[in-house]
């Protein structure tokens, strides 16, 4: 097992490094790319705090998905909330002593796991996919997930925070909004 232990440990460090570096790269890329025009999907909040509240509703409640498709919303929300609980529960493997909130969440993590699987099955019901193996496979999948996160549609997570239709304040008449590359057009 010691070879496997070393292998898995190295893989995890590698995957964690790729995840951190890749995500940082993408987030910096999003943050640096200008949004030259005001394009919030209206009706939109007219204040910064309103925008924070809008994004919070999207992140926590999946508000737009709720409007769009109730079935996808039910399973999608179950999956993500379950994943959230499971991740919290797994923190106990990485911290010592284990923080109190993480201790308290332990019993719920199990239900989170169930919710995740139910949610995933519900979502996969629309596009069949294989499932189910043991710990090695589980860990391998986690490694895989961490590796592909920065290069795939998993970027929807950070992406939402940078979505101009969701994160912009609706105040174009009150405040002039202009990107650097667009300002250069004015000087010519």
């Amino acid at each position, binding site marked *: 097992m010691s070879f496997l232990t070393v292998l898995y440990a190295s893989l995890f460090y590698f995957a964690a490094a790729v995840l951190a570096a890749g995500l940082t790269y993408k987030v910096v890329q999003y943050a640096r790319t200008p949004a030259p*025009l005001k394009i919030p999907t209206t009706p939109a909040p007219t204040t910064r705090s309103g925008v924070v509240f809008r994004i919070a509703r999207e992140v926590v409640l999946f508000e737009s998905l709720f409007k769009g498709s109730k079935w996808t919303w039910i399973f999608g929300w179950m999956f993500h909330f379950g994943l959230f609980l499971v991740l919290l529960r797994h923190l106990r493997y990485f911290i010592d002593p284990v923080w109190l909130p993480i201790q308290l969440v332990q019993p719920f993590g199990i239900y989170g796991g169930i919710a995740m699987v139910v949610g995933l099955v519900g979502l996969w019901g629309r596009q069949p996919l294989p499932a189910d193996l043991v710990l090695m496979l589980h860990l391998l999948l986690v490694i895989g997930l961490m590796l592909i996160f920065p290069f795939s549609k998993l970027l929807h997570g950070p992406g939402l925070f940078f*979505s101009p*239709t969701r994160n912009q304040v609706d105040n174009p008449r009150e405040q002039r909004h202009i990107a650097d590359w667009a300002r250069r057009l004015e000087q010519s």
Partner: protein
Amino acid sequence: MAKVNFEVPELNRYAEIPAVTPGVMSHSKPYMAKSEFQADLGFPGELVDDWQKKAIAKMGELLGKYRSLQVYLDSCVKCGSCTDKCHYYLGTNDPKNMPVGRQDLMRKVYRRYFTLAGRYFPKLVGAEDFSKEVLDDWYSYFHQCSQCRRCSVFCPYGIDTAEISMAAREIMDSIGVGQKYCNEIIGKVYKIGNNLGLPGPALADTLEGLEEDVYDETGVKVRYPLDEEGVEILLVTPSADFFAEPHVDGLIGYGKVFHEAGVSWTISSYASEAANFGMFIGSYENMRRVAQRIRKAAIDLKVKRIVFGECGHAWRVAYSFLNTLAGPWDFLDPRYPVPQHMCEFTYDLMKQGKLKLDKSQNDDMVLTYHDSCNVARASRMGDTPGGQFDIPRAIIKATSNHFFDMEEETIRERTFCCGGGGGVLTDDLMEVRVKGAKPRVEALNNVMQEKGVTHMAAICAICKSQFTKVLPFYGMKMDQIVSVHQLVSNAIILTPGEDDEEAEDADEAA
């Protein structure tokens, strides 16, 4: 009504989500722009030699300029929330008219050239080379998007297909594949000042005619001035308002409202167009060039305020982009927002009790209201979010006795596009226009059957033109679509000017 070689969809009581029929709309392509029109806009005249390389380079440039494009091409998880939200999908059954299907036409190319996975494992992630077939698909399906943003309401990440179709058109223009309708119209704005190519003298004639008509009908001298310096308000309105029905009835209404407000105003022959098709083709430079004409007109005519007439995408460009494209507006009167919508102006006046309205003048109509997509989902009116829904309705209710909304799923932020927006309003796309109108016409038909609605009011020149043309395909009458300010015009009780017997300057004396 023109001869048709396609089947007009049947209207149902309850909206149905159709089963997909792949490729049924791939034949639909608008006419290409001729090279001389491309040149006016700074685009190559025909497909350039190494078009693939240049298109990919352009895509790279846009990815660096527009965060929306970069984030939206990365973020889609194929959740399916958007699939049944596009009126073109609902009307044509073509899966490439699902928002996600349309986006994927670009996303597969993006993945191939701009992502690690797509470069090395293209099959695994659905990445594809930018082949001639893909380009043909682009030309076809990115011109079946009216950029109405309905999909963006339902996407959990706010992905807006309009951003993607705009970028696609910009990329195609950059390699010489332009759409005739949009690009020729933008050329006309540069040469003549408006989309319809109406020169100054023709405008002067038209406006003079309107003054005579209104005087004959009401006995009150209402002015419709052109190029008058030093007045308070510059009115920027879609050029369709100068002659087409029911648009012109709206313009007559604006003049009457200004008359009652006692403010001086003018139209500019140089900026005689509210529309800005630069947005449709995703070209910041062209959109800016068109918008700058309004700035120049405002400076030259020394006005203090800018008011926009009834036009959907024009109001998006005006409300959301004008400050960016042609601001700052520090030389205008800071007491008013720049620009203002005509509906905001009329509504303010109504609230101050300065408009005398006789609702019974519109008793021959039972009305409903069509929220135009760009007004609904890309702009605002008044001080609070949603004012763009409430203010036009308040005006309709103040000017008529019979008003019923269409089903909630089809109005306000969920409104269905007329089917002609975003550069689709051209006869060579008639099949797309008729089929894309289906969800809206279905909802209209329901309130006609159940509430006895006879007319639908709108505040968009494209919507008005589109419905005028398309309603007859569904067995309805072209004049069932009316302007909101047409209702105002009918209901308003004009105050005769003191000098109504004299020849001129009624307004400026007031």
